[in-house]
């Protein structure tokens, strides 16, 4: 059948299995919005308050469902507003397809109204991008974009479509959804197998790559087979149930003490879908020196990028683990286990046991309300690390957080996307800084009646930067004391949502009761002290010897 380019865009998205698309209309994408109107029974469009919210929502949708997130935006400012969201998805390897309008082909390069070179701008933050040159190539470009977005190491792909191509007509034949390239297990495992067999203190370290490979079962099986503890990067959280006896939690700059220490003591680190970011390793020259690292990743560019592994195994984490499991005999390591128990006890001894509205107590209470299905989304900062440390996840893809880019303002949009993706009541833990960056998405949450409980850790300061200023900048609180008069509950109400302010655990409990029975968004303005610390802390560029466990105030 003959369709316009705009119709082809929408039909191809539907054909590729997209049921929800996030976006914002404008002059150069108006034809596509006309098609969305036409096909509204087959595809749902969520109008956000700002294009950035749309990308974050598509991101939250993709992270919680494993599907490709889809975004539509107009040219110029519509396109540039996507940039932070695209970079967020790129750094965390989240599959996404974004369609932007642009000025007609004849006007490209003339600086016409709302024209911007978005393919140029997004070159370093997309897996690939396109500017479509003919309506005939449009459908196949979109299909190729889906292949690229979900194959291998996933990521965002942008398609820029000039307006005349949206209006031009050509034949369209629907096709089956594209498949990602076939994943393969790594080859030549024998050396790595010997290394694991010989190890006295193996440590399994997994990250976002393990989650996208769906390798949870295999990781736990490996842990049991070789009697090794498991730890993860921020991106690996929710990959293994929090109550698994061998799971030590997140390692790294603000990781669990036992997890970081065990990693540092290990003589063999089996790294699965991680990229040894500086937040995970600290000073890389002093990182896990006495260790053989076996690095399994689908992206061979990660080998030796920061840390030189003893063995690099390029392949799908799940399939590679299945092969490893065939080759590895069962082995008990009671001495290592005893050592791990000691680390755990040391961690326990340093546990925050203060009563009252401490971040720890707030999140412990929140744990009583979330269940295995609840997506918990964060912004970026102290609250993010506390959430990563305290909230218990029992199901994969339920922790949603901007890891690589560390995007403040990510949370609310992502929470909306997570809720729409899972259909489950979602929790957003945010801070007054990050929440303030994109709080206009409350409008989206209200319009779409999104059940999301928003916990704003309100301390009146930019807590993470303040923590650094306290520790490393002689308490020069340069521009981190907000001195705002924002009433978040009134803001929520102004947007048509509900909310309460709490400053004690009893009221928090009542607020959570209310929030978790509310149909739409519910905001809890949660007052906490401005001098709370995220601990432990590996100072930037430091090694495990510099680990800060306690701070005397």
């Amino acid at each position, binding site marked *: 059948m003959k369709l316009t380019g705009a119709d082809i865009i929408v039909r191809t998205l539907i054909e590729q299995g997209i049921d929800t698309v996030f976006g914002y209309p404008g002059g150069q994408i108006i034809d596509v919005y006309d098609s969305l109107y036409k096909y509204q029974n087959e595809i749902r469009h969520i109008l956000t308050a700002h294009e950035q919210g749309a990308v974050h929502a598509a991101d939250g949708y993709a992270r919680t469902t494993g599907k490709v997130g889809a975004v539509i935006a107009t040219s110029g400012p519509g396109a540039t507003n996507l940039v932070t969201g695209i970079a967020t998805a790129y750094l965390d390897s989240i599959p996404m397809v974004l369609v932007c309008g642009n000025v007609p082909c004849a006007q490209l390069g003339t600086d016409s109204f709302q024209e911007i070179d978005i*393919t*140029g701008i997004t*070159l*370093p933050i997309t*897996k*690939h991008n396109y*500017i479509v*040159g003919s309506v005939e190539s449009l459908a196949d470009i979109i299909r*190729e974009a889906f292949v*690229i977005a979900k194959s291998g*190491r996933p990521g965002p792909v942008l398609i820029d479509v000039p307006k005349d191509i949206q209006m031009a007509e050509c034949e369209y034949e629907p096709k089956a959804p594209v498949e990602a390239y076939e994943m393969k297990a790594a080859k030549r495992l024998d050396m790595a197998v010997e290394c694991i067999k010989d190890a006295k203190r193996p440590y399994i370290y997994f990250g976002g790559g393990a989650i996208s490979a769906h390798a949870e079962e295999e990781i736990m099986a490996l842990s049991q087979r070789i009697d090794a503890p498991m730890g993860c990067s921020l991106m690996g959280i929710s990959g293994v149930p929090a109550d698994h006896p061998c799971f030590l939690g997140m390692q790294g700059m603000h990781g669990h003490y036992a997890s970081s220490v065990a990693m540092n003591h290990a003589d063999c680190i089996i790294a699965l879908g991680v990229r040894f970011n500086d937040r995970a390793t600290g000073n890389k020259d002093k990182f896990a020196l006495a260790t053989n690292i076996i690095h399994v990743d689908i*992206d*061979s*560019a990660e*080998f*030796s*990028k920061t840390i*030189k592994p003893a063995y690099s195994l390029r392949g799908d984490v799940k399939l590679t683990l299945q092969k490893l499991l065939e080759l590895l005999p069962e082995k008990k390591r009671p001495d290592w286990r005893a050592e791990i128990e000691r680390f755990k006890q040391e961690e326990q001894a340093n546990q925050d046991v203060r009563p009252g509205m401490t971040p720890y107590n707030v999140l412990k209470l929140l744990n009583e309300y979330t269940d295995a299905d609840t997506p918990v989304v964060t912004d970026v900062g102290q609250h993010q690390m506390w959430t990563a440390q305290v909230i218990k996840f029992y199901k994969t893809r339920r922790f949603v957080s901007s890891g690589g880019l560390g995007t403040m303002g990510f949370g609310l949009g992502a929470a909306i996307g997570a809720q729409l993706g899972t259909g489950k009541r979602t929790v957003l833990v945010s801070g007054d800084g990050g929440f303030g960056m994109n709080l206009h998405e409350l409008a989206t949450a209200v319009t779409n009646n999104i059940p999301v409980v928003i916990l704003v850790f309100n301390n009146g300061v930019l807590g993470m930067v303040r923590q650094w200023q306290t520790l490393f900048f002689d308490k020069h609180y340069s521009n981190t004391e907000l001195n705002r008069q924002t009433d978040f509950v009134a803001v929520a109400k102004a947007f048509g949502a509900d909310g309460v302010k709490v400053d004690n655990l009893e009221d928090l409990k009542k607020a959570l009761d209310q929030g978790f029975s509310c149909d739409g968004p519910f905001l809890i303005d949660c007052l906490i002290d401005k001098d709370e610390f995220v601990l432990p802390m590996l100072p930037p560029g430091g090694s495990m010897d510099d680990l800060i466990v306690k701070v005397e105030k």
Partner: protein
Amino acid sequence: MPKYTTAILVRNQFGVLNRVTSMFRRRQFNINSLTVSETESDSFSRITITYEGDNELHHQIVSQLYKLPDVSKVKELDSDESVTCELMLIKVKNDAATREDIRTAADAYKAETVDYTHDSIIMRIAGDSRRIDAFIALMREYSILEICRTGVVALERGSKTILEIMD
């Protein structure tokens, strides 16, 4: 530092060179020379780069190149197993005192005079980069007005082609 010459076969499409060089810039990869041209096939262009670095840098460059969807093949061209060549045009001052010396040097290096005026000479020389560097060093004795080098092009010896390498 080892020197590498690497051939990259890319989709013959608008903007591909930009994608490749943008990645080099972003990753802080320092390239000594880069050439790009059409190939035997309409579907592909060929980029040849040279750079110095350790094995890890080389591995990074190759891996990062393969992550670009427009990149089809990447092949390191070992100097023993391949033929490399560069072309240079060099313009020097023409005066009576040095004219004869320049001509002798040009003969020795098989540099061809392609433009001759009363006060300038342009010579064309092709060969491996070391030979061209040596010729430039020689010409520095006189007055070099302008230099234009193409960068390295390279092909593997024998009948094998870059298309035959496995991914």
